[in-house]
């Protein structure tokens, strides 16, 4: 988000899902698309069958690897080096889009001087990727007519997450693959409304539509809209920042909605300590999650099927969903709970329905100005920016001009993972998700067929490593990092490269975030879930 906002001026998928069907080439990295965005993954498979080219950059042999023309299995955490290496070749071979770079971007010389250091041989050393593959990928991407970059958490969940994103943006601009249909830099968002949560200001530094809290004009605008004085102009804390502040005793109360930090945040043992240090913890959720168990007050919320409202999906499309069932027991819609809490705190909110709330969003959020309830009710959704009721919405961003004017090359140097394996902790643990479960399993582990398909935590280990350590398939193994230890069954598979362990954070029985490293990207605050050092042994 922060990386794309800096390079282009907008932190969102630049293009649309439908445009996948017309692209000639895909550079897919850090997304297990068929498992996590299966319908987008299906389009990639179909695109391959109609003759498109697929370049996959992923350390694991995921399902898409079976379809890839080139699979770059780079070492974990070497994304910047890999992408810089590709750009090095593109500049060296003079196959970048000179006209585009001159007309639409700035900072090219700076990019050239940084990328210059990443010769194919150097990059091969860092990433483990064969020079020939690197060259083939560079040539194919640069010369494709319409090339899309797709990425997800494999790019962002690093201490260098923002650098990784900026580097993806550099590559797209260098080759002129942004601001046109079926191109762009496309972060696939992991939840149906995480884009919406960001758009609505669920970030420490902005109001809705990315209006900065530190801007006097913006502050005044919202004070008027809400008829209040003295809104804070100070940037707030990220989640990782909150946990640290709670631990220090600086944060006294926390109101958690639909999130389960006890399992989703790194170094869970310290998260539990931090949450128990709070004077007051409120959790609003549809189930009694691991975090809700620690709460002083639990506010039961309605699930998606039990409420009406809008979601903003990964392609910036706002869609209206209608209530199908009444919420059970004493559960309420989230907006009703928030209004009631606000009323009791002395600020009654005058909303009668989700439509009322969207009305206000339309008034105070320029990019959502034309996304009205009336229009959503009769169609299949609208993509922002959509400033007025007669605007059709925007399938792809940065046409003719970037949101910020010129696209800015923001070159980055490669930095290694914060914690690399050593002689004691000699494996690299990378974490992710599987097809059948969502996040911390709060919902999916309660669904019998999904839980049947994936009933227990597994730890993926390469056959060579397993053999060396005397680990058999399904043997119980113990994984230990500097922060904790878990036990789970081994799955011996060449999906993971040698010296790499993969596991997920879906299972409370073996919560992988007891192990992960609580270091984070300095800008976005996102933790380095994708790599930390562990040791593994077969349980007796």
């Amino acid at each position, binding site marked *: 988000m922060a990386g794309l906002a800096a390079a282009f001026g907008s932190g969102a998928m630049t293009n649309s899902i439908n445009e996948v069907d017309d692209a000639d080439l895909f550079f897919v990295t850090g997304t297990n698309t*068929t498992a996590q965005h299966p*319908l987008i993954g*299906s389009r990639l498979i179909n695109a391959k*069958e109609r003759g498109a080219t697929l370049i996959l950059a992923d350390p694991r042999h995921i399902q898409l690897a079976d379809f890839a023309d080139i699979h770059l299995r780079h070492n974990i955490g070497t994304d910047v080096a890999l992408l810089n290496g590709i750009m090095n070749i593109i500049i060296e071979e003079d196959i970048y889009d000179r006209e585009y770079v001159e007309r639409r971007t700035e900072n090219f010389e700076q990019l050239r001087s940084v990328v210059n250091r990443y010769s194919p041989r150097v990059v091969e050393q860092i990433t483990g990727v064969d020079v020939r593959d690197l060259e083939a990928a560079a040539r194919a991407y640069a010369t494709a007519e319409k090339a899309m970059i797709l990425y997800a958490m494999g790019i962002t969940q690093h201490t260098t997450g923002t650098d990784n994103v900026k580097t993806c943006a550099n590559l797209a601009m260098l080759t002129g693959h942004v601001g046109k249909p079926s191109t762009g830099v496309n972060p696939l968002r992991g939840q149906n409304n995480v884009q919406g949560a960001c758009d609505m200001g669920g970030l420490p530094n902005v109001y809705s539509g990315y209006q900065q809290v530190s801007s006097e004009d913006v502050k005044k605008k919202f004070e008027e809209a809400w008829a209040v004085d003295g809104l804070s102009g100070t940037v707030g804390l990220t989640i990782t920042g909150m946990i640290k502040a709670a631990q220090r005793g600086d944060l006294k109360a926390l109101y958690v909605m639909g999130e389960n930090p006890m399992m989703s945040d790194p170094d869970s043992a310290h998260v539990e300590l931090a949450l128990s240090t709070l004077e007051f913890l409120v959790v609003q959720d549809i189930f009694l999650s691991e975090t809700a168990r620690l709460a002083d007050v639990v506010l039961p919320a309605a699930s998606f099927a039990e409420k009406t409202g809008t979601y903003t999906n990964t392609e910036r499309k706002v869609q209206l969903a209608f209530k199908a069932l009444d919420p059970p027991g004493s559960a309420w819609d989230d907006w009703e709970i928030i209004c009631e809490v606000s009323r009791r705190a002395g600020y009654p909110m005058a909303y009668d329905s989700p439509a009322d709330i969207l009305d206000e969003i339309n008034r105070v959020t320029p990019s959502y100005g034309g996304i009205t309830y009336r229009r959503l009710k009769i169609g299949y959704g609208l993509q922002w920016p959509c400033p007025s009721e007669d605007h059709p919405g925007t399938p792809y961003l940065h046409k003719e001009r970037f949101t910020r004017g010129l696209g800015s090359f923001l070159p980055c140097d490669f930095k290694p993972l914060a914690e690399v394996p050593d002689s004691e902790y000699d494996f690299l643990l990378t974490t992710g998700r599987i097809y059948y479960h969502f996040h911390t399993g709060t919902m999916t582990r309660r669904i019998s067929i999904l839980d049947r*398909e994936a009933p227990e935590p597994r730890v993926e280990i390469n056959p060579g490593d397993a053999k060396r350590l005397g680990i058999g398939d399904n043997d119980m193994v113990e994984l230990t990092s500097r922060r904790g230890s878990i036990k789970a069954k081994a799955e011996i598979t060449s999906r993971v490269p040698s010296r790499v362990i993969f596991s997920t954070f879906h299972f409370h029985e073996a919560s992988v975030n007891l192990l992960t490293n609580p270091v984070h990207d300095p800008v976005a605050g996102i933790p380095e879930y994708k790599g930390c050092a562990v040791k593994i042994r077969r349980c007796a």
Partner: protein
Amino acid sequence: MKSIQREHLAGLLERWSERYKVFAPCRQGQGECIFDRFDEETFTLDYRKPHLPPKAEYLPQSEVLFEVRNGEYRAPMPEGDRLFFGIRACDMMGLRQASHFMNRDVVDPYYRSRNEGAVTVVMACKGPQNETCFCTTTGSGPVSSQGFDLQLYDFGDRFLVEAGSPRGNALLEEDMFDAVDAIWAQGAIQTFRDEASRAIPVVPAVSEAMEMLRNENVSDEVWDYFGTKCIVCGGCAFVCPTCTCFNVTDSVRDRESGVRVRAWDACLYGGFTKEASGHNPRGTQALRLKRRHEHKLRYYSEGDILDGLCGCVGCGRCSDFCPVGIGTLEVVRAISRNTLSP
């Protein structure tokens, strides 16, 4: 044989609603058509092939088999007779095959109570409803030959109505139906059938693939090819009128209370065939796809397919909806061509 004016149909359904739970094609707010409880406001006759067969009405997506509350057992049985109006001939065959299978070896009281008294009113198709229709190949359409109570033939401002059972004949006693000349009507229906059948070409690949499967003449590469790209959504089973597999689970609230529920399942999920030991006789997606298609095209029980060709009724929905093109049509074509290029 009777007829009814097009403009009287909604009134007829209104009248039937006094005696039956009537399910009919309904137009949703954003344009889609589904089978739902009849409602004059949303009822439509312009519905082509609805995205889903009316399966959820004869085998709900999930259904409570019994519940225990404070130690007391209660098995809720669906009540009231149903009437399915406007189902397509392929779906009629799907319903017949499913019912035959579900009632064959043991009595499933839940299934039976929903379907024993159910009235079926078929809307004969004038031609293909979209490009994946292949009912003329599977012997299930475009017009039903038996098993229905009533069948309607669209002749513009009126429908000819044929009874297929004594119950259908009784329904035709309603004064909203008009008498027609029997000999003329027979001729008109015959012409309708001939024209409709001609409009839906037979897909020879289906019987060719069936033959090749019987002769064990299909390369594993076919299944490997499809297995590699299947995303395991299970959608093909959920949209299929003849897929009736379900899973049964208990949800225990406390020592004295809980429910036992059954819900749709799909043979493409690994857990469907996984054994308690951990062994899975269909251990790969390729094997699971092979089993699924062989069940439809080869290992169906002769008694269950009634007068159809096989366990597939040619509705084409798996081809309509599979996100990666693994519907029956794609599979039989790949088998019969014995090449893998799409």
